[in-house]
């Protein structure tokens, strides 16, 4: 890997002619908006957090750090956060890798449907996932109700909610699709002749896997595992609702310190610690990946996939897939059915009544509250924020992706790419906290602005948008643009007739990503949302935290509505997924 100094030097070499107004100036123009956005709404708030944690309080700069160091419970939280993330990542790999293999190497009927179904769980809002597991395994969930009914028990026998296991299961539920996609995609395009060559040279199946296939897959496995780890490490909604008070992650603690205890300096210190951890991980990842990556000639899927032959293999494969789909769909089925049933605990047993009352109740202001916001209004609010986020994320993401794929400027792009991905590694609660401490005075007083939440969501969605667009843009060979120019197309026509049609699908996918991310985002929103404009997840959380069967039912009903909107988006993505390698 090239050293940072060498990189900076090569960037400087590129920057100098740009400043003199040479032809690369258009490249820098592309960067203007995305970098301004990140500077203003990511780096500035982060700096502000740093300033707050260092500069406030009479006891001086170091006080919050001393407080952190002197509080063993905080240490325990940090340790637990790392431990649960590592364990969750290991379990996710264990559960996902066989699936990646199956989907990569075999031509399975319904492959796209399977992938789409696993994808739905990934984009589901954390609160919906928490609610779904609650509906299936919670004290008033289906499994406990059935067990109580069967064995005539008074108490729910199964303790799932507020356990460590609940967090782990939910994390596996969430992130398996990352392994399936990242590793599976790479595996599907890996040249099978490499493995065959090993076999011909006398390696058995296990040796081939260990000595050839796994080393070649290593970059994909490492990058998938890292993504999973980061998501688990910064887990918020899952830990908050399913883990309960005993199992708080750093992210939850930041939220508590901010909202419940108003200890902003300590929250800031915790945010910095969390950011430091994810940054270290990312640096390690780039180093590792540079060492592991090998130039490979990728093959189209049609070439690498075979039919699944033999009943034993078929049985094994399909039982695995059944388990996979079971884990990924049962909670959602539980959620949907539970939202349609009213439960009565009678001395004689349990009575189930099918009902739509939770849904009807969403439109009724029972207590004639003065500042009442109808739950259905929050649907409209969420949709409005989501559409604004889509517009912002595309307007900022398209030029960034465009600049990143400019081959002449590869050196500068190498420096910018990790910068763009930073928000992905920053916890959403930290982002929200940053907005609170930084955007509170003119000229950047956005506390009351309706743009505040879409801006926060755009920050979260931005890396996804860039990631969706760059492969499509870089798959356009520069030759195509040159060919069009030589056939008389001016730059605008080249964009209109060549680039736009070729990235159309990717644009659509990016838009849906931004849309679903905005719909489900909870960490940042929980901090910056104004009480009179709650989003859907905020509304769900309100109902979950209030006691009573009706509030629980309303939370479930809203979760179903939210998950249906996101699922529709995810299915649309699957439908328009970018063409396979080699199909262009």
């Amino acid at each position, binding site marked *: 890997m090239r050293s940072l100094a060498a990189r900076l030097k090569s960037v400087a070499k590129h920057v100098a002619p740009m400043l003199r107004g040479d032809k690369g100036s258009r490249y820098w123009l592309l960067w203007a908006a995305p970098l301004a956005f990140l500077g203003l709404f990511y780096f500035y708030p982060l700096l502000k957090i740093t300033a707050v944690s260092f500069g406030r309080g009479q006891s001086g700069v170091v006080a919050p750090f001393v407080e952190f160091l002197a509080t063993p419970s905080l240490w325990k939280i940090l340790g637990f956060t790392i431990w649960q993330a590592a364990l969750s990542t290991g379990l996710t790999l264990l559960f996902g890798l066989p699936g990646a293999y199956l989907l990569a190497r075999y031509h399975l009927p319904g492959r796209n449907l399977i992938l789409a179904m696993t994808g739905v769980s990934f984009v589901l809002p954390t609160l919906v996932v928490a609610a779904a597991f609650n509906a299936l395994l919670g004290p008033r969930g289906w499994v406990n109700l059935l067990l109580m009914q069967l064995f005539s028990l008074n108490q729910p026998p199964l303790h799932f909610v507020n356990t460590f296991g609940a967090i782990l299961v939910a994390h596996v539920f969430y992130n398996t699709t990352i392994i399936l996609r990242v590793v599976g995609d790479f595996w599907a395009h890996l040249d099978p002749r490499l493995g065959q060559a090993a076999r011909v040279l006398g390696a058995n199946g296990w040796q081939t896997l260990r000595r050839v296939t796994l080393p070649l897959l290593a970059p994909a496995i490492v990058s998938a595992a890292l993504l999973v780890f980061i998501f688990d490490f910064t887990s918020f909604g899952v830990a908050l609702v399913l883990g309960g008070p005993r199992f708080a992650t750093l992210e939850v603690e930041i939220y508590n310190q901010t909202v419940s205890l108003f200890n902003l300096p300590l929250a800031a210190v915790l945010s910095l610690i969390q950011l430091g951890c994810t940054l270290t991980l990312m640096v390690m990842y780039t180093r590792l990946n540079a060492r592991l990556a090998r130039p490979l000639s990728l093959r189209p899927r049609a070439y690498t996939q075979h039919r699944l032959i033999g009943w034993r293999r078929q049985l094994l494969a399909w039982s695995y897939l059944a388990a996979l789909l079971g884990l990924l769909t049962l909670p959602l089925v539980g959620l949907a059915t539970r939202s349609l049933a009213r439960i009565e605990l009678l001395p004689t047993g349990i009575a189930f009544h099918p009902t739509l009352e939770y849904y009807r109740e969403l439109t009724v202001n029972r207590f004639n509250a003065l500042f009442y916001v109808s739950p259905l209004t929050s649907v409209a609010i969420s949709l409005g924020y989501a559409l604004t986020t889509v517009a912002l994320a595309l307007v900022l993401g398209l030029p960034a992706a465009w600049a990143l794929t400019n081959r002449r400027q590869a050196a500068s792009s190498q420096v910018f790419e990790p910068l763009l991905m930073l928000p992905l590694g920053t916890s959403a609660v930290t982002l929200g906290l940053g907005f609170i401490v930084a955007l509170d005075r003119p000229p950047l007083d956005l506390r009351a602005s309706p743009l505040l939440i879409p801006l926060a969501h755009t920050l979260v969605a931005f890396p996804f948008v860039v990631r969706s667009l760059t492969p499509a843009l870089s798959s356009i*060979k520069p030759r195509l643009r*040159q*060919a069009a*120019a*030589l*056939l*008389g*197309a001016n730059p605008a026509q080249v964009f209109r*007739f060549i680039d736009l049609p*070729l990235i159309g699908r990717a644009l659509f996918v990016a838009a849906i990503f931004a849309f679903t991310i905005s719909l489900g985002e909870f960490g940042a929103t929980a901090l910056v949302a104004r009480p009179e404009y709650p989003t859907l997840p905020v509304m769900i959380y309100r109902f979950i935290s209030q006691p009573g069967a009706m509030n629980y039912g309303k939370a479930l009903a809203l979760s179903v509505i939210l998950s249906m909107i996101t699922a529709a988006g995810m299915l649309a993505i699957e439908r328009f997924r970018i063409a396979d390698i080699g199909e262009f």
Partner: protein
Amino acid sequence: MTVHSAVEEHLSEIDCMECKGLTVSQVYKRFGEQVALDGISFQVASGEIVAVLGPSGCGKSTLLGVIAGLEKPERGEVCWDGASLNGVAPHRRGFGLMFQDYALFPHQDVYENVAFGLRMTGYSTENMRARVEQVLELVGLPGFPRRDVNTLSGGEAQRIALARSLAPAPRLLMLDEPLGALDRALRERLMLELGEILRNSRQTAIYVTHDQEEAFAVADRIVLMNAGRVLQVGAPAELYRHPASVFAARFLGMSNMLPGRQLSSAQGDFIETPLGVFPLSARQKAGQSGSCTVLLRPDAIMLNSAGACQFQGIVQRISFRGGNSRVFVEANDLQLEFEFPSSMVLPAPQQIVTLSFEPEQALQVFDVSSQ
């Protein structure tokens, strides 16, 4: 006058102001430290097909990029009909370029691909359809318009790419290794067809290739390039008969180079080589007397003693190549190779053979400066 100095003279004549067609004069282009084009000059007259021939990496594709306006030269000028094109954007030059990998637009069908250039220049739908039909006919693929370009075979894609570049009737069409991606049999067939299509449509064209056979088959004139410089310009037969340098001779497939010394005496001029001393005509003499390199043309050698000059050698190896066979001979510690029709009775390996030639036809002398 030697061939080499004729080239020099030809190059120095080039002047943008008075020419019809394309003029490239003194073009320099560097990539970092690497000099890609080192003072390139040549002309393409209207209606002429010029092949730019050279080994891979000699700067041919960069040259096309400069002419097309995709690359900016550091120095020098590209002119059309005497008017400089420096600073004119690619889409305003009215030139066409057919890429080596064809660069067909994957999201458009055959019709849309071929019609693209017409659409850009504002053709009406009717005229467009007529023109597309016309060029598809010309390349021998009528009835193809609605095919998906991703399903075309190599040969079909090549023809569609040609049709697309021909459709807007560019002032100049450049073809970058147009047959490079095809297999041998297809290449040989298309080579002839391509030349015919270009000639029939009176297309001014630059044909870039590393294959001398292609250049010979297609071009009216050949510009031979190496390491960013023009080595020689001439009609194919002229180039083959009188390569201007050792490099040119080797590149055109003539590899028998002998060390020699030119001698002058009262009886005339002679050349002394390890194979013997042979007479030279005044036309063959190169530069001063003294050390030089002598080319023994492989196609002017007889496998008998009928020629005026003779030498003996041991046959090392015979490599059968279909119609011709290549015979490798060791003579006086020199490794030589000659081509004979396979229908002849060929000697066996290890056999001692007598070879002969007419010095006037078989020898070409290069002075040391033209290496």
